[in-house]
């Protein structure tokens, strides 16, 4: 369970009741219908706590994904009042008063209720070599990293799919590679671990690759892990533009 702060004697601070309207859907059925639940939760309860409360006391056929409860595994992504969030760290209070609309992520095939098919996301990251472990030396807030030895750590991106759901362009074209794959691609270019950056750049340098993004920065707003997908896409474009200009300059010099 997550942070329902209770004092040692175990009783909850004064309960509040919240109404949740949850998108329900059976596998292989097209129709989605909203079911409303009223659930008693503490003042700083998270969306995940409310959903688990519903699952254990109201309707255990409600299916959702969660595992780490602290935004490090990335499988509890969903939409709350239309905004992409990780259920485990999003307080119900952030949704403001009134009933809360809970829907699965957009731009992905819904398997059932709040569970979407993650296959596309993982497939889209493959050509970018799925960067997993990176070199890092800056420690948060200490800024003294340059003296101590660098350490290897997992990438910031937790592959939660919120950016793909938030991007307005992904919904309009299923061939667009998507912000998640482009962020992974930039990480492979910025720190090539065995991969050939030119290979990865050739893959993203396409109309359905990094050039399809129109800089709405929705992905950067939605990203819970600070992986900054928009920054990665823009960095890819900068790298490609620089290489192209360098090529033109070289052509110019060779002709003279």
């Amino acid at each position: 369970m997550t942070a329902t702060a209770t004092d040692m004697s175990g009783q909850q601070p004064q309960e509040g009741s919240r109404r949740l309207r949850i998108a329900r859907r059976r596998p292989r059925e097209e129709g989605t219908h909203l079911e409303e639940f009223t659930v008693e939760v503490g003042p700083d309860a998270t969306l995940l706590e409310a959903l688990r409360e519903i699952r254990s006391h109201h309707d255990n056929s409600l299916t959702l994904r969660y595992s780490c409860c602290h935004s490090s595994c990335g499988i509890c992504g969903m939409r709350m009042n239309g905004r992409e969030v990780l259920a485990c760290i999003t307080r119900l209070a952030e949704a403001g008063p009134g009933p809360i609309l809970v829907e699965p992520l957009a731009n992905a095939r819904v398997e059932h209720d709040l569970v979407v098919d993650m296959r596309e996301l993982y497939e889209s990251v493959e050509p970018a070599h799925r960067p997993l472990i990176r070199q890092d030396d800056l420690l948060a807030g200490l800024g003294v990293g340059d003296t101590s030895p660098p350490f290897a750590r997992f990438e910031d991106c937790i592959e939660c799919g919120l950016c793909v759901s938030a991007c307005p362009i992904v919904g309009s074209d299923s061939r667009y590679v998507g912000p998640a794959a482009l962020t992974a691609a930039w990480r492979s270019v910025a720190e090539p671990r065995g991969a050939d950056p030119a290979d990865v750049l050739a893959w993203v340098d396409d109309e359905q690759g990094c050039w399809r993004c129109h800089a709405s920065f929705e992905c950067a707003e939605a990203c819970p892990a600070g992986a900054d997908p928009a920054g990665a896409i823009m960095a890819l474009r900068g790298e490609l533009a620089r290489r192209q200009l360098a090529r033109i300059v070289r052509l110019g010099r060779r002709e003279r």
Partner: protein
Amino acid sequence: MTVTSQAPRPAHRRTAGPLRAVLGWARLRGGHLGAAAFLTNRVTGLLLVGYLYLHLGVLYLLTEGPGSWASVLRLFKNPYVLALESLLILFICLHGLNGLRLALVETGTGVRHQKAWFAAVLAVSTGLYAVIVLAMYEVI
């Protein structure tokens, strides 16, 4: 590791119909400046293309000789048309300056401050617009 060069063709995601796609643009989920810039750029861009054809149409009257062009001039004395013309200047400023912002940001430089850049674009555009409108109505 060689790249599995065949980029995955995401089979499952149906291409959303035009209406849902357009609605997708306007999903200002957090109402943040980045999305506002994206929408402003689109709207002003489309309006400017619309104006281009309106402008080319009006210019055709020039080839009809001085008589018809004089009637056009009279039309543009009408204050409402003048107000619309001034809006055109605002759209040009917004689209142009936001274009500069994108040219800068889309190479990765200053991408962390893209919201600040758009705030600057908004400020400069409204400033320029005010100056031009005052000039247009001979106030200054």
